[in-house]
């Protein structure tokens, strides 16, 4: 099995795993997702209509409203949070959003997760150790 290992910095601790959902579009929280289902609703977003519930969400970063954290907070309470979040651009929206989602989160990787990970790959995130293990989907 072909595995890729990425190293990065812990944003929120813990370990989890799941199928990757990857986007190159930044994500809006308030007005960009339906927190009750974890579905992306932004009109021109490439993931529109797809849900991140239980997925390892891999994305560049956050944009839009300061309601970002509260929407991901609600997603957690609604049982629709992602299993983990991996992202490149640190902002207050995403830092706080990750903290209140309580899912493992990482950033500052040794290689770009948007290049290394594709939608459908299986991803194990160990944020405490700063390690992401990717199993490519074609070899599943």
């Amino acid at each position, binding site marked *: 099995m072909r595995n890729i290992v990425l190293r990065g910095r812990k944003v929120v601790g813990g370990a989890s795993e799941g199928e990757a959902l990857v986007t190159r579009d930044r994500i809006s929280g308030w007005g960009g997702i339906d927190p*009750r289902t974890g579905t992306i609703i932004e009109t021109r977003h490439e993931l529109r209509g797809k849900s991140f519930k239980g997925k390892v969400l891999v994305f560049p*970063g*956050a*944009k839009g*409203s300061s309601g970002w954290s509260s929407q991901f907070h609600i997603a957690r309470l609604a049982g629709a949070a992602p299993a983990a979040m991996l992202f490149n651009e640190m902002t207050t929206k995403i830092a*706080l959003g990750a*903290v209140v989602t309580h899912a493992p989160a990482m950033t500052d990787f040794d290689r770009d997760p948007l290049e290394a990970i594709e939608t459908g790959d299986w991803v194990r995130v160990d944020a405490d150790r700063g390690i992401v293990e990717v199993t490519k989907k074609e070899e599943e």
Partner: protein
Amino acid sequence: MRLTADEQAMLDGAEGPARQRAMDLLVRYGEALGAERLVDTNNVCATVGATMPFLRDYCAAHSGGLDAVFSEFSLDSPDVVEIPKVKVYSCHLQQGLDPAHADRQGIGPEVVKVYRAGEAFSGRIGVQLMNTCTPYQIGNIPAKGEHCAWMESSAVVYCNSVLGARTNAEGRESAGAAMLTGKIPYWGYHLDENRLGTHLVDLQIDVKDTVDWGLLGYWIGEAVQEQVPVLRGVTHVPNLARLKHFGAAASSSGGVEMYHIVGVTPEAATLEEAFGGKRPKAVLKYGAAERRLALERLNSTASDRNVDYVMLGCPHYSIDQIWEACQLLEGQRVHENCNLWIFTPSAIKRIADQNGYTKLITDAGGFLMTDTCSAVGRVLPKGTKVAAVDSAKQAHYLPAIMGIQTWFGTTAECIQAAITGRWSGG
């Protein structure tokens, strides 16, 4: 993160469980950011009520009332704690409804009760009930250099760029914790070096009226995302309303929290000051083609020219915008198939009442509303399918949140649509 003695004492519980939870959240958040320390703030803007969709249900289902709502949604606390008075100047942002128009907004009496309970709670803990996305329009105008902890992306970008005060886009939890502690992570736009421009935007067409500024903001947000654009070539000095619409648009299509306009905004007397003597990462041009692209994107959800709802006041209208709308509306009548709702802070509505504008709007068949807007409160006239707005921000969010078509154009085009029930704009 390094904590001062008073911060450590709060974290150890010396000031009670609520401030302990608040400091714990600030430490988790600061460490997630990679911040080295906290900074004192005496100016917080946030939402603490429970009138927004989902929170209403949470509040109704939870016996702990507003203390439980604050513990969960403003502190990310694992348990319900009693919320003490805030330590620093704190203002409430927009709510989920206008209690004076609850019926019309499709809001039941049980949610109005939640609003009233939130009002009493905010009063008890000392949160000023400004109930607007534009606290800077009704007296909360921080000084240049003042450290703030504001939510509301359109207010954050105004605070940083136009006022020269310093805030990141805080969220409900960090702002809640800041209210109770007077602290916020010293990171991002609190530091000089992060306030410098990154992208130079050369304006090649005249950017004059409010719709021009909205389009420019919408295009820039998409082009620079969360970075710091510097505008060069402004031919007409913008007023408050234009800067408000520009920032709101740029923080919706992207994540702009800070911009400079050379010769206009307080940290950009010169191009050199705006960039701190560094070279821009990129130079972008804004001309007729870019303006057209922004307009096409904003109108991409709309095809039906029969408009059944015109919404003005995103961000909340200033008194001069209400005056402008009234001049266009005077002696006219809103079409029987259309609704006109205009949103403003209640403090500004008081002036509109005195000036006779509220009556003029009502006599024409429209309504002047306060406290909320259609996107935040998810409040629409019953059966709305096609809306028209003069706000790029609202045109961005309304189709996604409410699943309706939305036209974007000038205030005059919107008022015309309200009168005729037809969209005749671009």
